[in-house]
């Protein structure tokens, strides 16, 4: 019964979405207040319908209703409850429904939190979101229905993929999708503004919080995926430039560019066409990524549903959504005339450079990922594009971004003098140079330069804040009050930039990792990376739906003999799915990771792969800091104030420091 209701709810949502797509936009075009006012209600209705449907699917999984084909194929009675719930989105149909859920959530969010927007704009935004949602719900209904039944129901399901029975991967899809799908809001704003024929400073102000929220989620989602790859797959790395990984990175790159571009639209009413195009491109890349990873066109270890028939439908959907918006862009964009002019050396100029570099990196990653299938199609030859290509092309483009990141925030708007700006950052640059020089011999040129960049990225935002507080140039009390009165968004930006520096430091540290592979018998000790690793025991350990073979290792410091950690790498055999996974053991002290993976057992001993990874946790810690910086910016009251009317209500006389950002 519940699955039928869930199925019906999808159909209902599809109809509501269709109405949501047509009525508000028509109403905004004809200035019909009733139709405009209907938009929020329709968005909320769609959200409730899709929400119910999603809950129905979760419920089916929780009660192990094996008459639902999705549950029978991807779940089982023995699966722990948490993974029955998260397994809902661990397969194709469920993840598409999750897409639809978050899409409807975006519409609902605009309906609830977008009250400060002009009603016509809000109606158009909700309308565009409705159109996209309608397409996806139609796809769900016709080609990807999670509520298909199987009769008679099998006695037990085929089980959740053991790889997915892991907290990191279980929560990776919702967070990632909130990022992917969250950019649909920016997309909707772009299309709505093209329909209206107007992009002004207010548009920049309105788009930013939604873009920022989506960006935070996407940053966390990518970091979570990379972290999972590191601790679960056990190959010791964290990024392979795998096509599916690239598909998630592409919208992040243009989303970051959009975030910065929107600032210029807001402050100076320039870069309008750039920003609209970036908004359309970011969501288009999200959509294309969804299509590509499910189509079977990409060579990837991620086993998604590789069904070409579904691919055609998604391709058509993509064609309509992206093609339609780009057509609208080509026709209407000339209307968007910039109001502010600026010199090449200025804050705007730095942001333009930032845009160009980020989009170049995006182009490189996109071309590298799509080159093999296109060459095979056109010429019939197989070529291979792997990590060495991306490393040698993306990193040289990223270096200028990292250098300019520190400089941009201290340049002034419209026209800036480069030398005084550079002088303000002198101590950050000096510290970076000193670090590079000091570590050059010990760690090698590449690592030294990398660490120098990382330190620069952490210290230059601090230098900017110091500059704004006029530290040591005015009395300390005055500096302090200046700092306190700085808008939160300034801190958010500084923390965000510093977070990237922390991540880069982690990546550079990983290039210095040490490892070894040895056959170890119980009682034997291996020495590597400055530690002694002693295998204490090997034993069996049953789990809920697996049998584990666990090794216990005692790790001590090689020089002092002081105990450092006890580690338990394991291998799990899942009898139902006939799969074996490895449980890598990682012990971190924040500055380095101890990493052990179990291999085959032979002659009473076990093959162990042992790593010492310096600064590894900083990679993901830095991403978290970036997301926190974004969240801090989001909490800035100025971003939540929509219509200019409310600004006038602020009490007069409260001095706000000149918005130099």
């Amino acid at each position, binding site marked *: 019964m519940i699955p039928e209701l869930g199925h019906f709810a999808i159909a209902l949502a599809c109809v509501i979405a269709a109405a949501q797509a047509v009525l508000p936009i028509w109403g905004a075009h004809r200035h019909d207040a009733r139709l405009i006012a209907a938009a929020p209600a329709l968005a909320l209705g769609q959200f409730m319908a899709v929400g119910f449907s999603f809950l129905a699917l979760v419920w089916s999984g929780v009660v192990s209703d094996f008459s639902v084909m999705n549950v029978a194929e991807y779940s089982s009675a023995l699966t722990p409850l948490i993974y029955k719930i998260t397994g809902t989105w661990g397969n194709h149909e469920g993840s598409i429904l999750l897409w639809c859920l978050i899409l409807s959530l975006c519409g609902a969010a605009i309906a609830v939190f977008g009250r400060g927007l002009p009603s016509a704009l809000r109606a158009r935004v909700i309308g565009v979101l409705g159109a996209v949602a309608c397409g996806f719900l139609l796809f769900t209904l016709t080609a990807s229905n999670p509520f298909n*039944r199987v009769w008679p129901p099998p006695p037990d399901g085929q089980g959740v993929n053991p790889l997915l029975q892991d907290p990191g991967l279980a929560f990776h899809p919702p967070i990632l999708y909130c990022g992917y799908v969250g950019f649909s809001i920016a997309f909707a704003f772009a299309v709505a503004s093209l329909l209206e024929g107007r992009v002004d400073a207010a548009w920049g102000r309105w788009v930013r919080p939604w873009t920022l929220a989506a960006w935070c989620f996407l940053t966390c989602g990518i970091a979570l995926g990379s972290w999972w790859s590191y601790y679960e797959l056990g190959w010791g790395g964290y990024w392979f430039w795998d096509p599916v990984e690239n598909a998630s990175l592409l919208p992040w790159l243009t989303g970051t560019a959009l975030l910065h571009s929107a600032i210029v639209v807001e402050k100076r009413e320039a870069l309008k066409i750039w920003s609209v195009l970036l908004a359309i491109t970011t969501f288009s890349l999200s959509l294309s990524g969804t299509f590509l990873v499910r189509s079977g066109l990409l060579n990837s*270890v991620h086993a998604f549903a590789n*069904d070409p028939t579904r691919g055609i439908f998604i391709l058509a959907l993509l064609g309509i959504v992206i093609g339609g918006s780009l057509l609208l862009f080509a026709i209407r964009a000339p209307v968007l005339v*910039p109001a502010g002019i600026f010199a090449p050396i200025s804050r705007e100029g730095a942001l333009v450079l930032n845009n160009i570099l980020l989009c170049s990196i995006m182009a490189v990653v996109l071309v590298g990922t799509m080159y093999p299938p296109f060459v095979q199609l056109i*010429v019939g030859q197989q070529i291979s594009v792997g990590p*060495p290509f991306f490393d*040698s092309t993306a990193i040289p483009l990223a270096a200028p971004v990292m250098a300019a990141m520190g400089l941009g925030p201290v340049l002034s708007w419209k026209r800036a003098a480069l030398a005084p700006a550079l002088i303000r950052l002198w101590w950050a640059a000096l510290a970076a140079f000193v670090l590079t020089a000091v570590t050059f011999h010990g760690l090698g040129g590449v690592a030294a330069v990398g660490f120098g960049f990382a330190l620069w990225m952490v210290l230059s935002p601090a230098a900017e804040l110091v500059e704004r507080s006029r530290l040591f140039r005015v009395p300390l009390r005055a500096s302090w009050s200046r700092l306190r009165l700085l808008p939160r968004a300034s801190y958010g930006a500084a923390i965000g930039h510093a977070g990237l520096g922390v991540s880069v430091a982690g990546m550079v540290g990983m290039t210095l990792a040490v490892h070894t592979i040895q056959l170890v018998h119980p009682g034997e000790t291996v020495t590597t990376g400055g530690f002694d690793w002693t295998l204490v025991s090997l034993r069996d350990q049953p789990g809920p739906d697996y049998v584990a073979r666990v090794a216990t290792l005692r790790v001590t410091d090689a020089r002092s003999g002081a105990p450092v950690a006890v580690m338990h790498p394991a291998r799990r055999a899942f009898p139902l799915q006939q799969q074996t996974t*490895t449980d890598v053991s990682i012990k971190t002290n924040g500055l380095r990771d101890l990493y052990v993976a*179990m291999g085959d057992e032979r002659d009473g001993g076990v093959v162990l792969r042992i790593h010492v990874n310096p600064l590894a946790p900083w990679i993901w810690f830095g991403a978290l800091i970036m997301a926190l910086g974004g969240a801090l910016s989001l909490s800035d009251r100025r971003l939540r104030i929509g219509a200019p009317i409310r600004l006038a209500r602020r009490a007069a006389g409260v001095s706000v420091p000149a918005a130099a950002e």
Partner: protein
Amino acid sequence: MRNNQRARPFAGHRKNLRSLGLLLLCLMVSIGTARAVSDPTELLANPAQEARAEAIGQQLRCLVCQNESIEDSSADLARDIRTIIRQQVVAGRSNQQIIGYMVQRYGTFILLKPPFNGLTALLWGTPVIALLLGLGIAFGAHWQRRRRPQPGPAPLSEAERVRLESLLRS
């Protein structure tokens, strides 16, 4: 109750059952297992030689899993190729010779780094092309704006002109 045909995820690939089997084998073995936690007896005693062999292995794609290097992959074929590489390193062959040996058997697809030739020129040129394109558009827009004559203030109306004169006189 409808008895729908089970939508097998890989239904479109009957011909590729073997690659499916290989992929599942990879997923089972390699994704779970640590990066090629291979037989330590296959590692070379001489660390310099071992480092060279690893560096070569890092440049070659595992053809079974297709998205790992043969150093990372736990597939049998990857292991065999690792052994061949180490044998040749010990025999004193150069990196180029060893990689050429592999390319002769498996084609350039086994290389993770695409070679630079007429076919891949566009690929390798992408960073430069993208950068030049972006800078070109940005500077082009900038110069166009500067070339367009700035509209001066609108001419004054009669009443405004009278008011201006009275203001200037006072």
